[in-house]
């Protein structure tokens, strides 16, 4: 059991949870994730560790309501328990002094990019962050990202805040201006990560993406998270979640991410039905 020490809504359908998990908090490194299971009947889902504080033994998770389980998370309150939290999982991000690193965060991918940006900054890199959201009120962690960045750009699809357009635009301009960029890290929706990979490929800029495919155990046992990287099949849970963006087979990844979508839709309908009937499993929605 892991107690939720703090929960708040960062943006509509995007939630911040600080969870008591002292052993994970002391071991977590940027780029790693946890697998959580909410209750006895719950599924196991991976969530990026957005921050950890070993002094109070807490980890921070940012959750976007997408499927059945994340919709149940939305209903949790401070003081509720999460039944199972396993982690830290996955290989940590490569942190060293690369020089200038451009970090791109799309949507709630900003939560995953933040700890990496922080660590890269501590390692002496010049940090250029480009964060984006569909619209102003969906933008999260702006202050936190700004605090760890030497240069900071905000993009919104509709121009309601910062510049209008996709996060890839400022990166394109920087490359065209011939600015020295030693590494790019992109975390966000698949089309965004793919676009970044295509943009940097001809320029030979090392580019890393963090993948979030379907997982069950998160320890290498099921292989549900397999992804083709170059010539090899890799397991995102143990070999990743970060991979060389130029070697990832995004077509396959996109298809695989749809494998359980129909179930997910059915699931969401059923969860909403359950919620309407107030038949929420124990441990969810606060008592």
């Amino acid at each position, binding site marked *: 059991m892991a107690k939720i020490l703090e929960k708040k809504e960062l943006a509509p359908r995007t939630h911040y949870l600080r969870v008591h998990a002292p*052993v*994970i908090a002391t*071991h977590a490194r940027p780029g790693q994730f946890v697998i959580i*299971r*909410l209750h006895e*009947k*719950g*599924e*196991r889902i991976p969530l990026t560790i957005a921050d950890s504080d070993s002094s109070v033994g807490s980890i921070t998770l940012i959750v976007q309501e997408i499927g*059945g*389980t994340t919709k*149940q998370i939305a209903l949790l309150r401070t003081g509720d328990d999460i*039944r*199972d*939290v*396993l*982690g*830290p*999982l996955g290989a940590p991000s490569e942190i060293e002094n690369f020089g200038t690193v451009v970090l791109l965060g799309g949507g709630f991918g900003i939560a995953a990019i933040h700890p990496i940006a922080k660590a890269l900054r501590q390692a002496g890199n010049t940090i250029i962050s480009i964060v984006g959201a569909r619209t102003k009120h969906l933008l999260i962690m702006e202050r936190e990202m700004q605090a760890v960045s030497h240069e900071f750009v905000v993009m919104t699809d509709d121009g309601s805040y910062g510049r209008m357009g996709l996060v890839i635009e400022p990166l394109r301009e920087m490359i065209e201006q011939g600015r020295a960029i030693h590494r790019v890290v992109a975390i966000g929706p698949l089309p965004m990560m793919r676009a970044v990979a295509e943009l940097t490929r001809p320029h030979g800029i090392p580019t890393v993406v963090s993948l979030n495919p379907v997982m*069950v*155990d998160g*320890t*290498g*046992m*099921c*292989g*549900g998270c*397999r*992804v*083709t990287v170059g010539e090899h*099949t890799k*397991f995102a849970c*143990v070999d990743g979640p970060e991979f060389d963006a130029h070697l990832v087979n995004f*077509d*396959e990844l996109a*298809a*695989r991410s*749809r*494998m*359980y979508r129909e*179930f*997910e839709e*059915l*699931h969401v309908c*059923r969860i909403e039905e359950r919620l309407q009937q107030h038949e929420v499993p124990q441990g969810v929605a606060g008592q």
Partner: protein
Amino acid sequence: MTLTPQERMKIPRHPLPAQPPELRVQCFAEVALGYDEQTAREEAMRCLQCKRPYCVDGCPVAIDIPGFLKEIVAGNIDVAAAIIKKTNSLPSICGRVCPQETQCEERCVLAKKGQPVAIGALERFVADYDRRYRLTKPEVTVKASGKKIAVVGSGPAGLTAAGTLAQMGHAVTIFEALHEPGGVLVYGIPEFRLPKEIVREEVSSLLDLGVEFNLNVLVGRTLTIDELFAAGYSAVFLAPGAGVPQFMGIPGENLNGVSSANEFLTRVNLMKAFLFPEYDTPVYCGKHVAVIGGGNTAMDAARTAKRLGPEKVYIVYRRSEKEMPARREEIEHAKEEGIEFMCLTAPVAYHSNSRGWVEEMECIRMELSEPDESGRRRPVPVPNSNFRVPVDTVIVAIGAKTNDLIVKTTGGLTVAKKGYLLVDPETQMTTRPGIFAGGDIAGGEATVIAAMGQGRVAAHSIHRYVLERG
């Protein structure tokens, strides 16, 4: 009532009652139903009580088989249970999943001329009777040693080592990565072959012995072995399992609809996906299912798939049925349940529809040539024999590899071939003093009972090791 050997030999073997196939494929309830007391006694009477019991040699944990059979005949089921439990801490599990036909029962003298005594079914009877009436209660009879032992993994090897060490007076903590203890017994072996209630009861008897379970801990990530030693553990037993499913590396293997047996079985067994959406985890199972492989895991996957209602379930195996590593009983059960066997057949590619889902399996016919190093005849492809079968679900059950997480994060361990940990077979100690290993990590995929045997050997060596070091 004393019978002569001739009279005993005249009693025919009693078949183990089972649910009829047409009923059992509609549910996940246990297939085999077990003997009643009368049948058990009659079956136990068949034992000739050999002075030199070869059956015991065939048992990896050397259960006193004639001893417990004699007590069944005498009606002393509690004594029979105590005899079994002297060397086997998980009898209701072994009575169900042990390959008795290649172990104790193969050595039974009756097997030379006819049918061996149904030792497995009788072990199961005694263990179930014992559980139902709570005849034996595990207890620690020795003084606490004051030593802390860490066990990594709660599958058959880990549970056995933990139980044995606890009874020797040590303070044992099990570290398990999943949210439920049992390892392959809960995520791999299906409910209809091993009801999970039994695993839970075995786990609860370890709790009674004072064993602590620390779930949701992935050793190598959440904690390292060195941290365990620093926290005061005197020895560590590694039994994390084989870990990583193998794939064939053929085109189309990452298409939607293709998964490992581990994933498929974990979704259904551990996560209860067959009860989706009451349970939150879904499992995909289409109309035409191909299971690749011929081992017990392949049979489990095929029979599990069958219960999810597809039109056809195939077993695709590259050698002939005779070479299948699965237990005979599992093969027969699978056939009774309508699983179609495509032997001497190997998939070479999977073809997709426009949405990235598997639609067809391309296979090639095989024929057997000379025996290979495993002693089985090596399958070779028949040229130009490719053919296609429409399938929308493929479950790959061709074995597992080791997960190198512990080796990577622990100094001093030596890896033998295929990533298995090098251990001294006499003691199960690895190349680093104080670290022992057993089960799949220490020797390749084997049976539940082989893992338990190693867990038991390791427990005894750990006991000696920690006492010698004072």
